[in-house]
Structures are given as C-alpha cells and as structure tokens.
C-alpha cells in the first residue's frame, strides 16, 4: 500500500503495513501519556492556526473545522461523551470504584469519497479518545487531510508554562491509499484494527464489515443515511421566509448534497403558504448563497439532476424551479412519500396534510431531520415521534452538517475506549 503520512511527515512511497503499524505503536506511547487537556490546547491552537494559513484557508469547510476545534466545543464534546474527561488520563473515583477510559489502540478508518471533511473528523475522533489512527484515504479527502495534519505537526504552543508539540499527536496518525477492491490489502488493513471506523454507502459498509477482524475489534459504522427537512405551517407563514430559509438552503447545497446529513426533501405542512410560494422563497434563499461552487459536482450526478429536471419539466402535473446552471434545483410534486434522492443540490418539495404523515415514514435509515418550526411545543412533540421511530438527529435550521456528537445515534468516543475499573 502507498503511505502518504508517517511520523507526522508527508511521504509518498509503497510500504509494508507491518512497518507502518510498528511506527504507530511506537509513537502512540508518548501520545497516550499526553493529558487530554494538553491535547485540547494543541487542537485549539491548530484551529486558530488553520484559518491564518493561506494554504489551508482555501480548504473545504476550514472555517467550520476551525470552530469545531475551539476549546469550548472540544470540552463540550468530551463532557458529553465521557462525563469527566479526566478518565482518559487516569483512574478517577466513581460510585465506589475507580474508573478509567483506556484507548482501544489502533483505529483504522475507511473514509467515504463524498465529503472532503470526513477524513479529518474521523481522525479527530481517534485523537479525542487517545487512539492512534491508520487512515485509508480517498481521492477527494487525502490532500485535505494531509494538509491539516501537516499543520498539526507544526503546532508549538504553551500551556501553564509548558511547551506543547502537535508533532506528538500528528505522529499517531498514518495515511495510506490502496485499491478498495484489493481484498488482500483490505483484509490485512482490517486485521490490524482495534477499532474499525467505516464511513460509506451500503455496498462498501457491508464489504468492509465482512472483512476478517480481531475478535476484540470494535466496529463503528457510519452507514448510508437519509436526511430531510420539515416545515410547519406557522414557519411557512412568516413574512421574511426567504431570509429564514437561507441556512436550510446552505445545508442542501453543501457537499453537493452527497452527505448523509444533506436534506433531500422538504415537507411542508399544509395550511400555511402553498408549495409554489415556498418554492419562490427557497429560490431566493438558494440565490443568496455565495461561494459554494459547482466545479466539483461529479458528472454522473450532473446527469441525474438533468434527468430529474427533465422529468419534472415534461410532466404536466409536476413543476421545477431551478437555476440556469446546476447550482440548485427544486422539484415540486403532489406526493407525500420519501423520494429517492437525486443528490446534486436537488431538493424535493412536498406537502403533507399532517406532520404525522412524515414521522410515520421515518425509519432507522433516517439520520437528520432538519426542523423549520416556530411552535416550540409542536417541535418537541414531532421530535419525540421522529426519534422514537428511527431518526438519529433533530436539528434546527442550518445545523445539518454540524458534526456534533453523538452522531448517528452513537456516543462515538465512548465506544472508542475500553471502560476499565478498580474495585
């Protein structure tokens, strides 16, 4: 397999997996000794550094990554996942015993090809659980990941009068590429893992899950998911609807709507504005988005969007509102079921008599339900119904891609450590 990062340094040559793993094991000792507070300080510094660096400023999602790395967010994440993050550093008293969160060891990451930022977020999960990482990067996220890890390697900061080095953390990560269809390399990669972190579609998740693994290996699957938006009638009646829809429109457009958190359909509760009026407001909201270019949209996705537009243009009972280019598309029809996604910033707009019609269709395949509600009580009631039948995340407008833990219904960091006790 080809190794692109080892010992915190960018390289580019074929290596035996065993050599890579040996280096990671060696480097992980110092990393594990690092207090979690120091790790947070280094990542916080990295976040600030990234947006100052001209080479990193242009990376996809860099502002968001930078914000995610802020101390306050990291501390919130750690508190949510571990309750007391000090469990990562040593045994702490808890309910008549002492408890510690031991890293499982080596996290092997299979990163999907649809979202550029997935690579770094997957690695951050391992860092925040003090595991070392071996990443099988993909074409679209390799350079993104390598640039950020290169910056991490350069971090030098101070905390409580002590010098801290990001190189210790960066050395706990190796990045490789190999052909996914290469069963031999995939099997070896799988067998060295203490944790398998898999991001992908149904086909790849099934294939990777079935690769041979250690019996103690923890399998964390971020499989295929479907996300949607729901608007209550009160929200649709607001005067400045177009303005209010801007964050939702942005969520549709980001990652060319290929992420599991991307809304594919917006259901509008009947009784407020009709669909054509909502579409007109959405049009304005889409038009107001700046800086989300379509240069990277895959050609087969373009073809799917062109065909979807064609279907809705030719069908006398349907309608389409769209940009001249493929920047955004709204497909309007009279159905009230979950449509098969088109992706490529193609949002279905459908109305329902009753919001129960939406919750009744939710399954465990649903990840995020983005709520455009003004009625708080109605929002809580709907959220309870939606999550009871399968939705993992209820989010408010603009939060679809906010990588907040828990994710996909899991306390992920919690699963990346072994909870050990002294009684």
């Amino acid at each position, binding site marked *: 397999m080809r190794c692109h990062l080892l010992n915190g340094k960018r390289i580019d040559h074929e290596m035996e997996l065993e050599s890579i793993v040996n280096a990671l094991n060696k480097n992980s000792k110092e990393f594990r000794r690092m207090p979690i507070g120091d790790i947070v300080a280094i990542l916080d510094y990295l976040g600030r550094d990234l947006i100052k660096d001209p080479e990193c400023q242009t990376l996809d999602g860099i502002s968001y990554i930078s914000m995610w790395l802020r101390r306050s967010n990291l501390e919130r994440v750690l508190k949510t996942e571990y309750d007391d993050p000090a469990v990562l550093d040593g045994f702490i008293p808890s309910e008549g015993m002492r408890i510690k969160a031991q890293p499982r060891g080596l996290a092997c990451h299979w990163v*999907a*090809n*649809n*979202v550029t930022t*997935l690579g770094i977020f997957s690695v951050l999960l391992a860092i925040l659980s003090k595991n070392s990482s071996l990443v099988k990067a*993909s*074409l*679209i996220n390799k350079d993104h990941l390598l640039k950020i890890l290169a910056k991490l390697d350069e971090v030098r900061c101070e905390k409580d009068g002590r010098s801290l080095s990001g190189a210790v953390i960066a050395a706990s990560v190796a990045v490789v590429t190999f052909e996914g269809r290469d069963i031999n390399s995939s099997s070896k990669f799988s067998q060295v893992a203490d944790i398998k972190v898999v*991001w*992908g*579609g*149904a086909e*790849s998740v099934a294939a990777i899950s079935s690769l041979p693994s250690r019996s103690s290996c923890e399998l964390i699957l*971020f*499989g*295929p*998911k*479907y*996300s949607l938006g729901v608007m209550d009638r009160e929200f649709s009646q607001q005067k400045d609807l177009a303005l209010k829809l801007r964050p939702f429109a942005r969520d549709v457009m980001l*990652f*060319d*709507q*290929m*992420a*599991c*958190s*991307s809304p594919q359909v917006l259901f509008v509760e009947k009784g407020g504005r009709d669909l054509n009026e909502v579409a007109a407001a959405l049009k304005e909201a889409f038009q107001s988005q700046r800086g989300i270019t*379509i*240069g990277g*949209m*895959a*050609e*087969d*996705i*373009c*073809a799917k969007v*062109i*065909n979807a*537009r*064609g*279907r809705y*243009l*030719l*069908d*006398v009972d349907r*309608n*389409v509102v769209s940009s*001249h*280019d*493929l920047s955004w598309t709204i497909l309007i029809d009279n159905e009230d*079921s*979950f*449509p*098969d*996604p088109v*992706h490529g910033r193609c949002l279905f707009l459908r109305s329902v008599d009753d919001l129960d019609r939406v919750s*009744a*269709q939710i*399954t465990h*395949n649903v990840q995020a339900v983005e709520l455009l509600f003004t009625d708080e009580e109605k929002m809580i009631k709907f959220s309870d119904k939606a999550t009871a039948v399968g939705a993992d995340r209820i989010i408010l407008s603009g939060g679809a891609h906010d990588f907040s833990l828990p994710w996909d219904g899991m306390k992920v960091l919690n699963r990346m450590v072994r909870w050990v006790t002294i009684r």
Partner: protein
Amino acid sequence: MTDLEDLINKEQYTLQDDEKQSLLLEIMRPQLELSLRNDHIASLYAKLRVEPSSIECLDDIPFVPVQMFKLFDLATCEHSDIFRVLRSSGTTGINQSQVPLNKRTATYQTKALKSIIQSFMGAKRRRMLVIDHQGINASTAEITARGAGVRGLSLFSKGMHYLLKQEGGTIMLDEDAIAEVSRTKDDVYIFGFTYIIWSEFYHRAKAAGFHLDLPNAVIFHSGGWKKMEDRKVSREVFSTSVAELFGTSPSKVHDFYGMAEQTGVIFVECEHGHKHVPDFAHVVIRDPRTLQPCGIGETGLIQVSSPLSDSYYSQAILTEDKGTLLGIDDCPCGRKGRYFQVSGRVARSEVRGCGDTYKESKL
C-alpha cells in the same frame, strides 16, 4: 425560406457553421410551434417560459434529455400517423427509448443517411457485408437499434451478406457467406457494431485464416467503445487490424456516432479522426455543470439537434455521451461545419458514501 429536403439532398459538409445555423433555425421554428401539440413539450416550454418564435439561436432551443424517451410519449404528430416505433435497445419493453416515426420523418431520415454515406462512399450501389447475424434485422413493426443500423446503412446495397450466423443462441462465423464474398469482384461496403466486429468476427476470422482482398471496401462501424477500451483496443489498432483482414486501407474504416433517437443523423469520422456534423444537423457540447455551450477544446455532454422529425421532438436532444468540440469549419479534410470527438458515456463516479442511500419504506 430554405427547404429541408434541399438541405438534405445537397452535397454535405459544404455550409459554414453560422450560415447553417441560421438556415436550420428558420426550418426548426415552425417545427417547434407544432411540437407544442404534445402536452409534455408544451409543459417544458411553459415552465421554461420559452416561446418558439422568440428563440434566436439553435443553442437556445430547450433540450430534452435523451432518457426522457424512456419515460414520456414525445410524439409530436397525430398518433394515427405513426407507422413504426423505433426502440433503442433490448427486448423487454421496459425502460426502452420509444421513438415514434411517421412516414415523412422516416423518409427524411433515409434520405439524410443516404446523403451522409454518399459523401464518404460515392453514390454507386455496392454489395453490403453485414458483420452481424440476420436475426437482428427481423421484420417487425418495432425494431432495435442494431436492426435500425443495418436497415439504415443498407440504402446503397445491391445485395446483402451477413458474415455471422446464430445457431442455438451462439453467434459464429458464417463461413459459406465469407467464402462467397471472397469470390466477388464487386465493390463492397461493410457495416457492423464495433464491439461485435472485434469480439465476434475479427479474432475468429483471423484464427480461421480468412483474408479477403477487397481494396475498395469501405467499412462503417459504430458503438461499443467502452468495451473496446476495457479490452485496451485503440481506434488505430482496430482500424488497422480490420482493414488488413479485408484487404483495404485503414483510411477507409470509418467510425461513426449516432443514436436511435436521432436516426438519419450520423457523425462519420473523416481520415483525420474527426466526427463531422452534416449540414442538416447541429451539435452543441454542453458543460455538464453550467449547461452552457463549451468552446473549442472543451469537453461536455453532446447535444444533437435535427430538423428531420416532425413525428417526435428531435430539435434538441441532450445525450449522456461526452464529447469534445475540436473545431468549426476548418478540418484539414476540407469538410465545413463543426467537428468533434466522442469520449464515451458519463461514468459512474466514485463520489459515493454515507449519503448514497435510498429511501427505505416501512413494511
């Protein structure tokens, strides 16, 4: 007012692109008006807020994605006038393009094809060798693209010979037919689908020791380049190998691009490897993301516009094939108009992941 028939019957590849575009627009505008008789086309124009009379250039004619022929009845004539439905491929009747033809359209298509072929082969009738088996051209009201190709190219035929035969579901060389052809003193032209020529005919014929001596043979072939690329067979290797087998020159081996939805319009490759647009058709390469026409040297989706049909919407069909506009009016072969190359279908991307899901219905 230019007559479409004149445009078809005249010598091809003689009009400059801008001259041709204005002639075609003049012919197409009334056709577009008539196409609004189809509810789907009327819906398309209404939603895009386009009036045929306001269209000022060919590139502005609203296009229909080629896949729509599988989903909608795009007939623009009275249904009672339809005498044949052309199907794109397959035999199941599901997800096939349905192209309705009336007699007038079919006549224009035939004349158009004749006009194109004539400019590469001359007007003289020849024996036609078909590198396929006879079964693909069975006489039915609905024909497949393979059958349509054979029928279309048979215009200059003064006798057809199928060089393959099918026995018990297996395709094999028809050695008797090949032996008969090897004795002919007549000029011939040859037609087959690229992949079938290579996979079913060439290797078997070579292995069997066949070598024909047909120095004036002109070979037309089309389709299946994806499979050829998978087999690492270049166009040069194909042309040289097949020409050698028939004892003709590689410059007489012409690949062409066409589609069932635009029968009558084929884009034949000249000796410089450029596919040429005849005077009665227009090609625009569209950027798949901006949908704007591409410039020379740029690659995008191929859109074909043709005035040949008044039985279905042929005036702007956007394909899922990728092509590159190579030039306009200046091919070294001397043919005027646009020329381009085809680089295959839009490939399924690897941009898949956690969002690559389908709705899951509750049982």
